[in-house]
């Protein structure tokens, strides 16, 4: 008996922790949200583009000029170029993914770009369409004021920008880049070979800047700032810095294909206005709450005390799911919310199977204690089998894969798995703890269901 009470307390405590987490990490529920620690602040619900508003772009990469073995490298390099480009424009949490060709996805290599909050599709495509830049900059003439900023916490940051001024030399004049290792230090470095024009420009730059720094900028950020020792007439430059061989290889891949590693063309564009998305969120939450309330009402009216316990278990189920959405994190789309709402309906199925079984066992003149444990163990095989088919569909749908479907399959599949735990473990713990109410007529009434007495 004490064991049972302890398990109930453990479940309730764990349940409260989960509720507490969801509450704390949700700005709409927590009025002190701004003052919470970063752990809570950094766990928002992640909304898909259809709910947050934004642009979804699909590019086709033309890899016909790339050797079969190098396709993956070029595609990864392409992703990096685009990702940097998008980040440069200050889009929050962009998602850039490569979709390799294959049996399922078709013969084309694709790049999928999700830009939350960017609802001007022309601007979005324009900023991706521009080619990334490799620039060489030289020290600004002495006396140029340096820009220093002091932020709120009193930290002084020196803006390196004005320190360097642009030259004519850019990635346009790059002929070839390759990865090599320093003879003495064995450190990886990237060597650049310029074409004729580039060689002349580079020779001139190095000649004029002996003893000074030359900064190599990639996509607007300095990646290497070597000091020039002598004039370099052969058009060869070296970027050495603190990078690993892998990083070096990636950099080479990126530089070698000129600006963008492979030509890309736009296949499909989608933009969802922000109002449409927030309307969908409100509607989804409303549907979930109403659905939950009606199901809870039905459970309590029809299954009485066990029904009430099932509603408690369902509450715990819902908060566990919300926590998983935040922590995993799961990107929620309208279809994902639909999957979650459906999973609320499915989550109580196991309880219904158990309670119907419980009713039967009670009819065959068992004590409540026996009936409860028989109800749970005998309903198990049908619970397991009936949920398996849903999980199978969810797995295949997840694998099938567009983001819309993935969201749905993930919430539904996850829901079924978690609900098997909540409906069986949690409601069992609750119910077996309640057995102390004895075998009186009232107790039997409370454990019966439907219109029977």
């Amino acid at each position, binding site marked *: 008996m004490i064991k049972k009470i302890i398990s109930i307390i453990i479940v309730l405590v764990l349940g409260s922790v989960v509720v507490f987490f969801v509450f704390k990490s949700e700005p709409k529920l927590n009025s002190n949200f701004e003052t919470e620690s970063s752990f809570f602040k950094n766990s928002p619900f992640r909304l898909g583009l259809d709910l947050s508003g934004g642009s979804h772009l699909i590019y086709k990469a033309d890899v016909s000029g790339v050797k079969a073995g190098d396709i993956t490298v070029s595609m990864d390099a392409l992703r990096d170029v685009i990702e940097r480009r998008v980040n440069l424009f200050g889009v929050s949490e962009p998602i850039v993914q490569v979709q390799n060709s294959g049996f399922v996805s078709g013969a084309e290599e694709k790049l999928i770009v999700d830009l939350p909050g960017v609802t001007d599709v022309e601007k979005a495509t324009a900023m991706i369409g521009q080619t990334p830049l490799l620039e060489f900059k030289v020290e600004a003439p002495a006396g140029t004021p340096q820009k220093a900023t002091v932020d709120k916490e009193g930290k002084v940051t020196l803006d390196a920008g004005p320190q360097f001024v642009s030259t004519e030399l850019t990635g346009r004049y790059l002929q070839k880049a390759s990865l090599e290792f320093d003879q003495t230090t064995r450190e990886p470095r990237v060597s650049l070979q310029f074409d004729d024009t580039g060689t002349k420009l580079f020779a001139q730059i190095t000649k004029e800047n002996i003893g000074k720094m030359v900064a190599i900028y990639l996509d607007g950020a300095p990646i290497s700032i070597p000091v020039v020792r002598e004039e370099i007439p052969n058009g060869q430059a070296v970027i050495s810095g603190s990078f690993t061989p892998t990083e070096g290889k990636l950099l080479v891949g990126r530089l070698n294909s000129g600006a963008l590693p492979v030509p890309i063309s736009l296949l499909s564009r989608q933009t969802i206005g922000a109002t449409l998305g927030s309307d969908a969120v409100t509607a989804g939450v409303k549907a979930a709450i109403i659905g939950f309330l009606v199901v809870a009402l039905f459970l309590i009216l*029809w299954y009485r005390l066990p029904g009430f316990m099932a509603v408690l278990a369902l509450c715990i189920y819902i908060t566990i799911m919300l926590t998983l959405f935040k922590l995993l994190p799961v990107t929620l789309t309208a279809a994902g919310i*639909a999957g979650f709402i459906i999973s609320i309906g499915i989550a109580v199925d196991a309880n219904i199977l158990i309670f119907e079984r419980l009713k039967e066992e009670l009819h065959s003149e068992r004590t409540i204690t026996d009936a409860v444990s028989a109800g749970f163990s005998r309903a198990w095989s049908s619970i397991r089998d009936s949920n398996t088919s849903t999980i199978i*569909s969810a797995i295949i749908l997840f694998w099938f894969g567009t983001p819309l479907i993935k969201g749905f399959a993930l919430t539904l599949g996850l829901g079924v798995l978690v609900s098997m735990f909540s409906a069986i473990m949690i409601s069992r713990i609750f119910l077996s703890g309640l057995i102390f109410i004895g075998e009186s007529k009232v107790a039997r009434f409370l454990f019966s269901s439907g219109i029977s007495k």
Partner: protein
Amino acid sequence: MFIIKNKKIFISISIVLVLLSIVLLFVFGLRIGIDFKGGALVEVVYKTNRPAQSDLDATFKALDFGSVLIQPTGELGYIVKSLDLDEIQHSLLLKTLSQDGKSSLEEKNFNSIGPSVGRELTRKAIIAIVLVSLAIILFIAFAFRKVSRPVSSWKYGLIAVVSLLHDVIIPIGLFTILSRFYGAEVDTLFVVAALTILGLSVSDTIVIFDRIRENLRNKTGDSFGDTVGKSLDQSYMRSIFTSLTVIIVLLSLFFFGPESTKYFALMLTAGMFFGTYSSIFLASPLLVLVEEWQEKKKK
């Protein structure tokens, strides 16, 4: 027992509904959405008042856009469907819709899908449908591998698949009506709905088959028909209730949920409803019918 006695009536009802759905499918057909065939969809809302549709139609005719379909939506909005648009065509379209800036508008939704993306999705959808069906058939055969008398396990599987087809075909039949009269289109969610029905409705059939499996093991009932009848009596309530809770949340999703998942919820509701109907009034009676045929053959 009532159901088993009148099994032929119930089986006939199902057959009629399925045939009706197939006829509807051929007569009305399904509108294929831009997800699969490619194309563009633009949804705009005007700030003050929207221009007359005929004016817009006329301007579009003058431009070289191919076929452009304009549908009013809400108080001040239009949904415009056309072939897929590139950047220049898209801004031209918006300019035309705003009548060169005279009627100011907000673009709420823009979607342009190239034909190759549509083809890819179609291929994925077909593969997924085949895989889900195969996996479920295998699963049923596996779940009922130990039940072989008097009806062998693969027949349980076959009957479950027959009722599965029934559960998917009838909602598709209903969807053709939505497609014909309300402009619903076959999109990704339609395929997801069909596949989810496959997963959900089979679980309902399994609940009843599971009871038959148990009763056969315990030798309840005099004949096979009797056993099935008893199993049905014992389990139809839970079969209805498990579906009922799912239908409750689906209806809530339909009435209160986001616009984009309305038809999805409706189709799933129909799938759940007919799924429950089929596991009680189709799958179990079919099981008895198969057993009776087997007996006749023996004699």
